[in-house]
């Protein structure tokens, strides 16, 4: 079943209607709840907070009627990844390990409430955000609406599916190696990983305390900006710049092995940007081939540090793959963690160097279309590789370096699966990155705009 276009409008569109009282928050919420019900088989949500959301929508409507607008998220249904604390609701992390029962909201949730958002529910994820497919979730695999035999990416896959199925208007995701951008690419949504430390991860179950990011997932770049501003608690500086922009496409390791459909999409995006007057040239990121090794020696021990006491008590409750990755992390030597942190500084300098003379880097967000659930390897150019390695390859570098990055939908494969491109901005340059992404959204998405309906 195709999702009605009215259920796939942007936050900017519906918030204007809500502000003019042409559509009520209650109507938006009931439509989203109906879409959640219609898409139960996709496993996008772990918990639907219908009762509290109805109270919040009613309160928003009363405030708007009384002329007390809280801004563009006022009365808009937003979903929260179930790794993030919402007071009075269990934080399950999609695990059978006993959930947290927070009495207070994570600061970013508090900011959403301050902005008048209606919190519709908690979305499904790969257990403890430690994977890219959601095949390991105690609440069932999240299925890709474009082909339910396939993964919706991960770890924030429930968030992406909720967006393309009209179950909410914006989602909160987290990203430690690509967990916002990978499902965005697999499902055809926009996903912003801000600069490292820009949004607080307090009240969010950690995976890697030095690589974790939280950010918005939306249907348009404009909506990502609206949500980012709400999460940050202050407006971004206005960047009056419509280009032309200079884009650097990294050559070498990062783009050596791409699915042919992804390589074609990248070529088409380059052509579209050049035709619109932007400059696109190849750049080198020195040392990029060491990224996965650096990432592994930072993320595994940091994850193990959080989970060690839980493993002592609940080892058997973890999904086998997640448990084994955590057990590996417990064995990494301090010497190698320190070496990885020092190489991290080198990678930051190399990405800065690649960005010198460019406004942003351009590369795919995901090297393959959404993989088939249950498969452990994928073949590219005749060589089989673990799916997890391939899915993280184009995103994890920017978790290590902390540069802001945004995934945008960028066409489809011949069988209709979404593909995604990624723009990477200068450190501390999230406002500029969002301005570039907004100015080039039409070229990158192929003129089709943002989210098209999936099939439920």
């Amino acid at each position: 079943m195709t999702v009605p276009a009215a259920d796939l409008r942007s936050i900017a569109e519906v918030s204007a209607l809500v502000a003019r009282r042409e559509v009520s928050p209650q109507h938006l919420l009931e439509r989203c709840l109906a879409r959640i019900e219609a898409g139960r088989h996709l496993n996008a949500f772990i918990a639907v907070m219908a009762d509290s959301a109805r109270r919040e929508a009613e309160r928003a409507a009363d405030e708007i009627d009384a002329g007390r607008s809280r801004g563009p998220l006022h009365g808009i249904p937003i979903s929260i990844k179930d790794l993030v604390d919402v007071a009075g609701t269990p934080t399950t992390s999609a695990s059978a390990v006993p959930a947290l029962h927070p009495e207070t909201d994570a600061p970013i949730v508090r900011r959403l409430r301050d902005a008048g958002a209606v919190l519709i529910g908690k979305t499904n994820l790969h257990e403890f955000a430690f994977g890219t497919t959601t095949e390991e979730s105690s609440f069932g695999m999240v299925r890709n609406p474009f082909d339910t035999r396939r993964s919706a990416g991960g770890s924030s896959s429930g968030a992406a599916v909720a967006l393309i199925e009209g179950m909410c208007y914006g989602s909160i995701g987290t990203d430690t190696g690509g967990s916002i951008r990978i499902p965005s690419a697999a499902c055809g949504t926009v996903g912003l990983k801000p600069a490292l430390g820009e949004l607080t991860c307090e009240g969010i179950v950690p995976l890697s305390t030095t690589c974790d990011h939280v950010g918005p997932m939306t249907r348009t770049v404009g909506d990502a900006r609206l949500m980012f501003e709400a999460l940050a608690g202050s407006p971004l500086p206005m960047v009056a710049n419509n280009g032309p922009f200079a884009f650097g496409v990294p050559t070498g390791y990062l783009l050596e092995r791409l699915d042919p459909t992804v390589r074609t999409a990248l070529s088409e995006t380059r052509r579209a940007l050049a035709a619109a007057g932007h400059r696109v040239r190849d750049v080198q990121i020195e040392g990029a081939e060491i990224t996965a090794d650096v990432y592994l020696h930072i993320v595994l021990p940091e994850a193990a540090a959080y989970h060690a006491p839980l493993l002592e008590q609940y080892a058997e409750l973890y999904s086998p793959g997640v448990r084994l990755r955590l057990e590996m992390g417990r064995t990494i030597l301090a010497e190698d963690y320190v070496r990885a942190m020092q190489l991290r500084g080198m990678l930051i300098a190399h990405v800065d160097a690649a960005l010198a003379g460019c406004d942003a880097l351009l590369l795919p967000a995901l090297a393959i279309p959404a993989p088939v659930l249950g498969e452990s390897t994928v073949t590219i150019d005749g060589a089989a590789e673990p799916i997890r390695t391939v899915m993280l390859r184009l995103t994890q570098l920017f978790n290590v370096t902390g540069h802001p990055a945004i995934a945008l939908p960028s066409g489809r494969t011949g069988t209709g699966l979404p593909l995604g491109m990624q723009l990477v901005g200068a450190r501390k340059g999230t406002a500029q990155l969002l301005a570039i992404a907004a100015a080039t959204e039409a070229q990158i998405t192929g003129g089709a705009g943002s989210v098209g309906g999936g099939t439920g």
Partner: protein
Amino acid sequence: MTIAEWLETVCADADRRALPQLKPLFETLARSTERLRRADDQRRAPAEATRRP
């Protein structure tokens, strides 16, 4: 600790804990650690060369 010593230790521990599934993962991790150490040694080499006769 050399990587070979580390691998021997962690594989023995995996056997002791009845988690033999970890052993192939440790072998993959050992190769990753080798690449990491090589890259870090190369990073340090220019500065060390001028200061350590």
